[in-house]
């Protein structure tokens, strides 16, 4: 194992040096940082050419200049890393250090959401193979696959930002739209739940009516101008969460777990008003962190109160329920800031932005306003990223689960009388994650590598934007910085994937 890792590390380092040498020279010969200055009739053009030549060592031929750059890189071993300066005279390290968190903030939420949603849809799709829902998901996946993200982004901005903001200035949902959305919702839920024709139509009618009435109520109350969940809705949803989590986590037959989950939901509801006061007066990340810790602690206590043996699954159910119910209260609190946010001078009643990470002219100490602002700026790019990567996860997880379901051990599990929930969650789900684990590593690289197009289209200054800028302005040092980081991630990512494989699957052994 150790020799395997060291051998792989050695090869990785060779690859890194080789690729950086190649990229450096290719880029250096293909670009001319002085092009613009050569054609300038600026009085100071000669001075600028001289200064740039000095700063970037342009008088040294690229193959040799590479070693000047390499010397700065190797300085990392004596604690003096120097990746050079950009054309604008900024340090490449500080540019990278600035861009990485931006990219992570953008991509993290989208990646996790797309992953969870894609897995869920893929699994349901596989369980209902060749059903209407399955065909629907297959259609959706291919549709999303074929969409270019820059186009999706433009559409999202047009309809979910510009048009929606216009709509908010004169809010009125047209009757035809209510019908259209309700039909869509009805078809979605009835396909998802499946069943006989009679069940299909019942679900359709129920979902259609509910959706229609909700839209109508929203329209009537102008809910979108001052949204919130309110204690009733939170109470109702919390109970729903308690049942749902229990069903997935330990099965509704487990009475103790069900009771524990319901107690957690009840505590969350009771906690609603005190939480409001705390949020209003002590809104901060620390408060939220402490609350999450409290919820987890309470979950363990509640589980302990209900059972002396086999507390694990009960505690898991209780904690998951508690955290999700708490999340609802948090969402509710953020929604309460919406009205104030819309009315600020910076927002000026157009709350959905089309670009950027923040409204810089929104200067406020209010924790909730600031976070709502960040969330609003995250919504569209996150949605675009989710739409694009969702398709892949749906297809991968569907395929992986179908393959696992055809294995002998699944038949054995069923034959020995396990119920379907246990067969799926414990036997099938874990094994289907094996082939997907190497894809996770790819996502991890993308997490830092940046969503080049998304960043550019939404005006985020992350790694992708940095890479484009480096190419467009012939900024060799910056390009090398980005390239080095990415190749490092790819190489280590692959190594990690191999190690992860052997850790997850005992049948796989790493040998020379």
């Amino acid at each position, binding site marked *: 194992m150790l020799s395997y890792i060291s051998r792989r590390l050695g090869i990785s380092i060779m690859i890194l040096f080789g690729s950086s040498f190649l990229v450096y020279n290719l880029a250096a010969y293909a*670009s*001319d940082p002085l*092009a613009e200055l*050569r*054609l*300038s*009739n*600026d*009085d*100071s053009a*000669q*001075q600028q050419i*001289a*200064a*740039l030549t*000095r*700063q970037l060592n342009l008088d040294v031929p690229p193959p040799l200049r590479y070693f000047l750059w390499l010397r700065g890189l190797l300085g990392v071993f004596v604690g003096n890393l120097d990746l050079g300066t950009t*054309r*604008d*005279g*900024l340090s490449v390290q500080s540019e990278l250090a*600035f861009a990485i968190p*931006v990219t992570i903030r953008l991509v993290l939420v989208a990646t996790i959401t797309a992953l969870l949603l894609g897995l869920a849809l893929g699994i349901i799709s596989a369980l209902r193979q060749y059903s209407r829902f399955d065909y629907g998901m297959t259609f959706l996946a291919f549709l999303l696959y074929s969409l270019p993200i820059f186009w999706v982004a433009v559409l999202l*901005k047009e309809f979910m*930002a510009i048009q929606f*903001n216009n709509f908010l*200035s004169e809010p009125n949902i047209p009757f035809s739209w209510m019908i259209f959305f309700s039909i869509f919702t009805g078809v979605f839920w009835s396909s998802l739940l499946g069943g006989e024709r009679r069940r299909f139509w019942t*679900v359709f009618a*129920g*979902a259609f*009516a*509910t959706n229609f*009435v*909700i839209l109508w109520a929203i329209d009537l*109350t*102008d*809910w979108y*101008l*001052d949204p919130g969940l*309110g204690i*009733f*809705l939170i109470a109702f949803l919390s109970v729903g969460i308690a049942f749902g989590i229990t069903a997935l986590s330990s099965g509704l037959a487990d009475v103790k777990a069900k009771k524990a989950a319901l107690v957690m939901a009840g505590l969350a509801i009771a906690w609603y008003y005190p939480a409001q006061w705390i949020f209003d007066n002590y809104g901060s990340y620390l408060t939220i962190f402490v609350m999450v810790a409290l919820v987890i602690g309470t979950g363990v206590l509640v589980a302990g109160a209900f059972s002396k043996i086999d507390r694990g699954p009960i505690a898991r159910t209780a904690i998951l329920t508690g955290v999700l119910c708490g999340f609802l209260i948090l969402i509710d609190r953020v929604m309460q800031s919406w*009205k104030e946010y819309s009315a600020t*001078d910076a927002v000026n*009643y*157009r709350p*959905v*932005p*089309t*670009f*950027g990470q*923040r409204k*810089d*002219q929104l*200067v406020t100490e209010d924790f909730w306003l600031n976070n709502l602002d960040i969330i609003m700026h995250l919504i569209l790019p996150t949605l675009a990223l989710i739409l694009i990567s969702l398709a892949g996860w749906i297809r991968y997880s569907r395929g992986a689960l179908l393959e696992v379901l055809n294995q002998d051990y699944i038949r054995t599990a069923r034959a020995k009388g396990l119920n379907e929930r246990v067969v799926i969650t414990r036997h099938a789900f874990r094994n289907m994650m094996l082939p997907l684990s190497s894809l996770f590593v790819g996502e991890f690289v993308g997490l830092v590598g940046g969503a080049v197009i998304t960043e*550019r289209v*939404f*005006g985020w*200054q992350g790694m992708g934007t940095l890479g484009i*800028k480096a190419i467009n302005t012939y900024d060799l040092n910056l390009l090398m910085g980005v390239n080095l980081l990415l190749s490092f991630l790819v190489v280590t990512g692959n190594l990690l994937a191999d190690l992860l494989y052997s850790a997850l699957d005992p049948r796989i052994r790493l040998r020379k």
Partner: protein
Amino acid sequence: MKFTRSAKFALAVAASGALAVSLLSPASANTRSTVVVHDTNSLTSFNSGQPDTNLTINGAVGYLDTIGFNYYDDKKNVIQNRVFGSYRITKNGATDFRVTYTVNPGRVWSDGTPITAVDLLLSHVLSSNDYSKAAGLGDPLNKSNPSAFDSNGYSGTYSNNIAGEPTLSADGMSLTLRYKNKIANWDLFGPGPSPVHALVLMSEGKKALGTVAENNAAKARFLAAFNSKNTNVLRAMGKVWSTDYDIADVNSSTNPLLFVGNGGFLVQSAVKGSSVTMKRNPRYNSGPALSGSVDTVIFRFIADGTAASQALANGEIDIYQGQATADAVAALNRIKGVTVRGGIQSCYEHWDTRVNAAPGQPAYNGIFKGHGGRGADLRRAFLLAVPRAEINEKLIAPINPDVVVLGSTFVSPGEEGYDRLVANNGSNFFVGSQAELNAKALRLVKKHFPSASPSNPVAVKVLVPGANARRAAEFALAKANAIKAGFDLQGDVQTSWSPRIQNTEYDAMFFAYCQTAVSQTGTNSNFRTGGGNNRTGVSLPNLDAILDSMQLPLSRSSYISKVIQAERIIHAEGITLGVFQFPAVTAFNSNLKGVKPAALSPTLVWNWWEWAY
């Protein structure tokens, strides 16, 4: 069936909510006092005077917070700012040419310190190579010992012509510069104000604004150091000037001394990669009065053109500039409440032919070789065969409908004297229907290649700038037409094309020169024997003589007359031919008044004081 049950409950909740919540209507929008200006590049420094910070956006921010003796308007005229001060020639000798700059009394910096002529002296430090060397600051042209002030002002016209040090008047409000020669466009090389007291205080480690008395004392310390060429004091200032302004994040903990200015708006905060927020300067009295209805100017950076135009549609920005493509213009025109203006950038596209080898290049023996005679005939025939009208109509008019085929490469359309120039500079030879021009070209070709014809064309090797859709289309149009005039254009597409322009292997090339200033000598080095931008190898003593005479200050009409003489020669030789001015597009919130796009840096912010809601 869980969903339907839950939905029923939600319905009940929503319905009860409906009773509780009264109908809300959005309050009417506040009166806006903020202008959000878009730029494609992010700010990298608050000092745009360094070689590596010389970006339009850096310059634009600096333009709002410091105002000097003159500025360019949207017609490329130099306008004197008489509120700040005045300048005039005080001695008009051929070898002793003096200009005196006087600051009007009562002008103040944003910290209340009076502005005097001492504040103009830093320009000399930033521009004169001799001073830099004499004061021990380093030699701007020396690679290993550059000047302590990392300025891009060195080694230029000012440095080459200034004699000695500027002299202060007794009252300290006037500064007289002495040049060794009369220089053309001397008003462009004059000094600008810098808050030297703030630089001195920062170089002494201060982190807060001083009182007026402290500031005046600091200014006196600078003057003493300037006069005695005190290397240590000046080097410390140079370090601050060259590095401390290179920040992109500004907040309440940033040293306020960095943002002392005399312009209408001062930097208040900035977020790296995102924006710069500037607030109205309450002490502003150095330039035209502000309209009053704009309190805040914010620069927001969006690299992507489509994203910026959608941000404009969403009311997130007020002024959009950039991405001049036909689709972008069409998209902007569809936005409600937005005014779209076509316009021009400061770059012009032109086709050049090779006359001879440029300095340092192997000999040129292609068909265009030599002045006069055969070379000139073929060059003119070649330029005739470039379908300029068609290129403009197909590639530029969808973006800027007012585009005109350029009749001069010295003066651009709309500038004073352009019409007289074009009528007389020989450019008429290249104007007419393309069929006529092709016939004319073919006659010239047949003179030297009797067998030449569209089916037996003469080969011309053309350098085609790569990675550029418009230039690819431009070359395709030219190639398709030139065959009718008996030329076979053999394009060589190069992504890294600019160092290759002078390569002798190319007979012809097309690209753009970009102006950063309007000056009599701007295109001078393109045609002068051995000139810095002379890549075609042109060398004509009579042209050199005319260009030399343009180095002196001239009245506009005599300048135009000189250009007519020069361009007659250039056109008769068929050396270069302008095609179009790069198109630009600006779109802005129609409620905002006074926005006038301009081609030269600082582009559209040039008249910030006129912006009004």
